[in-house]
């Protein structure tokens, strides 16, 4: 999927080529991205960019626009204004499945596995798009092993624990060989061991397969463990951006997180 860059040069992709094409390390670039729900502005002219191969964490108080930004990137929400460039393409008007074909993948906030299918069947679904026969079987086996789910491959996915469903869904999302994987709260409600396993999985995918990540997460310890850079969203726009140490010590960030400025009610999770 990543080979798609560099082709298809036409008028429509020129801006996209400049922003996220082969001549730059930028993988994802949003340009003045606005999303309004009725009179409420969820994201307000956000210019957000992600480099190829980095792990970026997206933090911010509830209602800051994190999930909205993510859903704009995947196409589940249509942008009110602005553009989204990804992998050399202007994907602003593309359907979600078309963006997936450009090298994007996502894990939802609530574990979304196909409950009535077995674990193996769940992993076959992304893999059957990319391979057939023995190659497909190999890929599914590999995905099962990587998500540590080989012992429950014939179990109904709906019967798995919350933690294993998270692992399964990340496994499904990673099976698409994405260039960028978006994770919405991958460790919410998980035990210490399960968190460690997810952190490990993210690093492995990043190092071995060069997958870039955008991770929405509230847990600062987890963020510190995985993130290269952190972006703080506040009231629908980027508030700060930088390494976690800087962000953690920033009094302004502490202020918005503690909710002293009125509209943010602190960290719910």
């Amino acid at each position, binding site marked *: 999927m990543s080979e798609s860059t560099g082709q298809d040069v036409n008028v429509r992709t020129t801006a996209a080529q400049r922003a996220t094409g082969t001549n730059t390390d930028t993988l994802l670039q949003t340009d003045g991205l606005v999303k309004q729900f009725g009179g409420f502005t969820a994201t307000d002219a956000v210019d957000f960019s992600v480099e190829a191969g980095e792990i970026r964490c997206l933090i911010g108080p509830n209602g800051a626009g994190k999930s909205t930004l993510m859903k704009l990137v*995947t196409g*589940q929400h249509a942008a009110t204004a602005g553009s989204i460039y990804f992998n050399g393409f202007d994907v602003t008007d593309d*359907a*979600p*499945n078309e963006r*997936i*074909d450009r090298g994007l*993948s*996502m894990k*939802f906030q609530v574990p*979304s*596995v*196909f*409950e*009535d*299918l*077995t674990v*193996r*069947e769940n992993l*076959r*679904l*992304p893999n*059957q*798009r990319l391979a057939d026969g023995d190659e*497909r*079987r190999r890929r*599914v086996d590999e995905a099962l092993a990587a998500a540590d789910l080989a012992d429950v*491959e*014939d179990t109904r996915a709906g019967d798995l624990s919350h933690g294993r469903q998270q692992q399964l869904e990340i496994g*499904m*999302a990673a099976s*698409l060989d994405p260039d960028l994987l978006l994770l919405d709260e991958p460790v919410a409600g998980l035990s210490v061991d399960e968190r460690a396993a997810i952190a490990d999985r993210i690093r492995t995918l990043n190092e071995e397969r060069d997958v870039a990540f955008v991770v929405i997460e509230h847990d600062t310890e987890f963020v510190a463990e995985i993130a290269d850079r952190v972006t703080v969203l506040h009231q629908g726009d980027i508030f700060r951006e930088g390494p976690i140490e800087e962000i953690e010590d920033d009094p302004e960030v502490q202020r918005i997180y503690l909710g002293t400025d009125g509209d943010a009610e602190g960290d719910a999770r």
Partner: protein
Amino acid sequence: MGTDAFPTGVLGRFEGPNTVGSGTRFWAALAVTVVALLAYPSVVGPFAAGQLTRYLVSAFLALSLAFVWGYAGILSFGQNAFYGLSGYAFAVVVGNLASPLGTTVGVGVAILFGALSALVLGYFMFYGGVRDVYVTITTLVVTIVLNTYGKTASQVFVGSVNLGGDTGVGIGEITLGAGPATYTLVQPATYYVIVAVLLATYLGLRALVNSDFGRVMVAIREDEDRAEMLGYDVKFRKLVVFTIGGGIAGLGGVTYMAWGYSITPEVVFSAAAAAYPVVWVSVGGRKTLSGPIVAAVAIEWLRTTASVQFPEFAKIGVGVLMIASILLLPDGVVPGLRGASRYFDRHGLADGSRLAIDRARRAVGRRVGGPIAVDESSEVVQE
């Protein structure tokens, strides 16, 4: 042992995770059923075979709904619309062309017409962002509109064929073929042909739901957004499924004409008629293909028999059956039987029965005890 290890031979195509009934026991039972169906006319005579033909025709409708609803999650009240439209289309083509070749062409045209109607309706629904319960409402409304229109269309001619309003439209005998090679389809041959076509449709759909395509259907049923985020074009897939479902309902419409030679709006487009497939599929088990067939045949047989003896209760009986099935066996009778068979395999017959009786006793006790307790104490009300 994963599903990749399923037999890859001819039989393997019909088996997979999306099916109830596999292995030697199932195929033996299916073979026995087919033999029994084939022997039926010689045993009971042509009249009873004709009756059963009518019930088998219902099975096409049941299959079409099980396919779109049970496997792709599209609860449609419109399968009857496609069924009826195909029946009408067949009558119109046969009436206009009035030749064996015309009739043969009519079969194909009618099935395509059912599929095309589903394609058009499906396009506007799925690409128009209509989802979930709104699909159900839209399809029901379309069916009822057809009923209203059909009843008033007493002087509407398509070519030389009058759609006939309330009284509908009829055809003469069905003679298939071309030139000198023709064949007139009469009972019991009609019966045998319908059994064969039903079997082929069942096996075809079984292969389809167990293919890669079927896996995506189930994924869409389980979680549309997740399926889309795996890169599947969900709208297009739903449209394809809905169109195939319309084609199968259309096939049912043609077999209906082959059985009865006439069609009226009330029989195919009325709200009651549109509800029956939902009942068959719910009762039989919507996530199966065999369940809806069995339920359609059984319920139609019961309903027809009951409507001779107690005409006023027949429809109510069908409704009661549906409610009972949803309360007691929410996944349907066939999955319920499968569950029961697994249960007794696990616990043994004696222990299993004891456990089940205990559990039933407790459940009944709770239900009976509950309302009484409400009257006596306020604590229970707080619950």
